[in-house]
């Protein structure tokens, strides 16, 4: 039977965290390469040489 004192949100979350937490045993999972690097065309390289690299968003 579930205790009556887990009837509110905080108790529910706390109980789930306490009793159901995953074991801590990290394992790396690096992203795999699935696409070939994008090659710039000669025209794009020429445009960059003339006008410079396009500004990146957020700078």
């Amino acid at each position, binding site marked *: *039977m*579930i205790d009556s004192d*887990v*009837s*509110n*949100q905080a108790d*529910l*979350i706390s*109980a*789930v*965290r306490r*009793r*159901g*937490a*995953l*074991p*801590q*045993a*990290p*394992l*790396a*999972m*690096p*992203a*795999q*390469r*699935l*696409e*070939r690097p*994008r090659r710039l065309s000669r025209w794009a390289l020429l445009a960059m040489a003339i006008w410079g690299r396009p500004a990146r968003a957020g700078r």
Partner: protein
Amino acid sequence: MGRRTSDAATVLTRTVALTASFVAGCAAFLLFLQFGAGDGLDPMDGIRAALIFASTFWLAWGAAQASAGLMSRPPRPATDAGPITTRTVVLVPVYNEDPVSTFARVAVMDAALQAAGAGDSIDFAVLSDTRNDQIAQREAHWFLRLLDETGGDGRIFYRRRADNRGRKAGNIEDFIKTSGAAYDFAVILDADSLMEAETILQMIRRMQADPQLGLLQSLPKIINAGSRFGRLMQFSASFYSPVFCRGLAMMQGRTGPFWGHNAIVRVQAFARSCGLPELRGAPPFGGHILSHDYVEAALLARAGWTVRVDDDLQGSYEEGPENIVDHAKRDRRWCQGNLQHSRLLLAPGLKPWSRFVFLQGILAYLSSLIWLSFLLASIVAPLFTPPVDYFPIDDWPFPVLPPSRAAEALGLAIGIVGLLFVPKLLILLDAALRGRTRGFGGVLRAAKSVVVELVQTSIAAPVFLMYQTRSVLQVVSGWDGGWPAQVRGDGRLSLGQAWAASHWIVTSGALGLALAWWLSPALLPWLLPVAGPMVLAPVIIAWSSRPARSDLFSTPEDASTSDLITAHHRMLGRWLGEDAPPSGTPAPMAVTHA
């Protein structure tokens, strides 16, 4: 030497199957050109011949797979007869599912493993990506209920992600990055999956016996189907799929399939090889990889691991959609995922067969578009046909009628129908000779089920063709369908609901008939088996969603329901009868990592 022998058998099977399919496609191509030459060849005849080549190749490929399955008996895989010496976790990713049913499955599987004496080496982890706060609240409540039921503290876990980045693949990746090092193997399930304890243990033993085995896929059987459509799919999965699966295993060899669930993976291999990147660009072709399972199988093979499907593993179950509309929704996601694989056909380092498997998955959906294009081209063909020259011979005063090519047309139609029907009839014959029909109600009832299945799928095929064609066109035009939550339940649809889902199919069928009547009246009898069901789509959809009443489509799972399935039903009944969570409790925030 054993491995080299089986590699040789795989190469031989692939070669024979591909050659036979190519020959069948060429035969259809030439036969159609002969048919078209009757009134003079024109460019539309060339286009139609090319389309019939592609369609026939695809049908013949399916028939070749069935033939390989009928003619082969793969050797029994190696298994470790000793004790279980490894640690395994059973992963249950959920996304807005009904927690009562899902956690009841976890409870009965855990109880079965405990009874088998293997509970200490096998944990369970429910990985929630649920976005709906009310469902999440119920998940939390029923998880605690599950722990109380099973005494599972310390071996049954629950985690709800704060965001569902990467969807199911991201969900599993998140688990591996958090807890993967604690386990040797992971059994990956769906929310509606059920696996017998003995099956899980057998899969672990096979993984222990072959250190090169990266992933082992079982063939899940559909259970708990109630509607006419659901029972038909359940019967097909149980009766035909084992043979097709055997043929697939023969063709794929060590570069086998992963279907995303009811499979076991070697955690270290999966972690090192299967991290999925986001593809450049926006969905549907860019972004997160939707059909991650095929890609993960290809990546494991790329890294040198064996990926295998063992069709002899029993006790692996799943549930399926109960109506055509829910099936079409799920198929839409698969369509987008498969078409997205076109971005990976030239991915670096993949095995050639993995690339072919991607192409196969793409063709599985393009074939509907190819068939529809053939029908449309046939309707408008008379516009391109040159006028008949009744006096082709100089100085001959009498008219020369063009030769009838009805024999070629009929031959082509019989050949194509044969490719569809004959493999299934051969599977019936094989089942009767081997005694397998006993599990399907005996020879006569199995035969009746097969005949009715052939008729019903032939009638419904044009409806599926239209849904798949629409899916392909949506994806190609950039419409991201995402990953809608799976609909479970009895799935009954009213005629009104069926009309809402398929009125565009009715319109398409009626327009096709009208166009044919105007442009090519001779085509009408050939078009009726396709356009007729299209016009009747709402009736077909509504009727097939109703509960099944006959004794057709019996499966071995009906005849002797497993203890596990019975236990699940009992547990579900008991839990549903208990009090609901206290009302008025606000939805909990997402449980984040500690």
